């Protein structure tokens, strides 16, 4: 009887702990969550480790990391916050790289609207963009308007969304005629808009500073094999393929590593 109990106990125990499987907690900026879910799927298909995904704005995740949140890897929507974490000694040595470069687009829910023409002519009442104070896509949008010398004429008509998700929300609910969002968000719209339709304008990269999104491995994760495996995976060509397919660019120096 005793032996049987012991065997059952061991069997149950082994069910709970698959071989060499650890969990890595991945904190991602909300605008990357969609892509992170695809990365998670691909990672878990090829590894025994499991990913626990946490998402919030980069600013909130940053504040939580300062307060010792149990995160292993942080995918920020910008470069600034990872740099600050690095300066504060919270990052494992040399464990920071640019995992994606965001692409800015101008978009309208009105399929017949030529958004670029409309922007240049000022044919709209309201234009949404993310708040440049803390959203990198907001900085890019403001810079674009400045480079097109539209800043003055648009200023009073700008609606500053909390982030690009809200910017898209304002566009889709037609509370604004057009707005700046990330190219990656277009993939989440149903029905999927055709990339060459006139209500989408891929803003030329020369018009705004590159939206570099950095990943960091936190110092506390250095001994977690799952975190290290995910860190390598994020830099693999498999992961880069997923990120590119989600309409981000990858730094050219890193490709083909």
């Amino acid at each position: 009887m005793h032996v049987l109990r012991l065997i059952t106990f061991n069997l149950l125990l082994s069910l709970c702990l698959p071989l060499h499987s650890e969990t890595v907690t991945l904190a991602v900026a909300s605008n990357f969550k969609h892509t992170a879910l695809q990365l998670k799927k691909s990672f878990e298909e090829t590894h025994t480790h499991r990913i626990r995904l946490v998402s919030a704005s980069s600013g909130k995740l940053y504040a939580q990391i300062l307060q010792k949140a149990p995160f292993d890897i942080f995918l920020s929507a910008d470069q600034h916050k990872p740099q600050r974490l690095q300066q504060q000694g919270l990052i494992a040595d040399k464990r920071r790289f640019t995992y994606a470069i965001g692409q800015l687009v101008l978009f309208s829910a009105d399929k017949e609207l030529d958004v670029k023409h409309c922007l240049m002519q000022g044919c709209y009442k309201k234009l949404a963009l993310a708040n440049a104070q803390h959203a990198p896509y907001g900085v890019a949008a403001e810079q674009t308007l400045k480079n097109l010398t539209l800043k003055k004429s648009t200023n009073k008509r700008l609606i500053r969304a909390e982030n690009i998700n809200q910017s898209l929300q304002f566009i889709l609910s037609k509370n604004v005629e057009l707005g700046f969002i990330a190219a990656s968000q277009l993939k989440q719209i149903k029905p999927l808009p055709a990339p060459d339709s006139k209500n989408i304008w891929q803003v030329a990269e020369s018009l705004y500073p590159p939206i570099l999104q950095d990943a960091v491995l936190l110092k506390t994760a250095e001994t977690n094999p799952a975190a290290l495996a995910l860190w390598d995976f994020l830099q693999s060509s498999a992961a880069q393929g997923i990120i590119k397919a989600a309409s981000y660019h990858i730094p050219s120096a890193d490709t083909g590593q």
Partner: protein
Amino acid sequence: MLLSQEDLQAIWLTLKLASLVTVLLLIIATPIAWWLSQTHSPLKPFISAIVALPLVLPPTVLGFYLLLVMGPEGFIGQITNSLGLGLLPFTFAGLVFASLFYSLPFVVQPIQNAMLAMGKRPLEVAATLRASPIDQFFNVVLPLCKPGFISAAILGFAHTVGEFGVILMIGGNIPGETRVASVQIYDHVESLNYANAHALSLVLLVFSFIVLSAVYSLNRNIKPSIAGL
């Protein structure tokens, strides 16, 4: 001084919004509370439930639906558009409108409780002395239910000052128009300006503490059961 011009503007806007909403809500909530406290109508539970609904919905969810309803394709958006008022999202008027919903239960319920606690007797006595209904309302109901009205005003004001989720959804963060103190604090936190966030939060906290203590000490004799708290 750690407060910037924009912080001061946000505080001023918050006070303007909360005061206006409180006054409007006292006017709107009084007849609702009166009806709810007197009626035996089978509709009463449903109206009570509608009044209490904003307590249930998370503010950002409430804000999201207000954004849709007040937008160009929404029911309210089409009304305001056809009246030539334009659309409510991203305007101060829109914030006032949304706050009326958001803070309604906090104003109706204390008044309703005070009216229930008063009971029918004082009005019956007033009626035998030939007081007209209007006379009864101003000279009997208002004085007897004063603590309830004060509680309602405090709760309505405080709740609107602390409003965040709804405004975040429909405001569009426009300085001097929709960027209230709570949103400004949030922006400071999101852009890692923690010192500014602390300063503004502290000012808001101290101010609210002073106002609340002042009102409560002026009304030290309020019976909690009547005050609805």
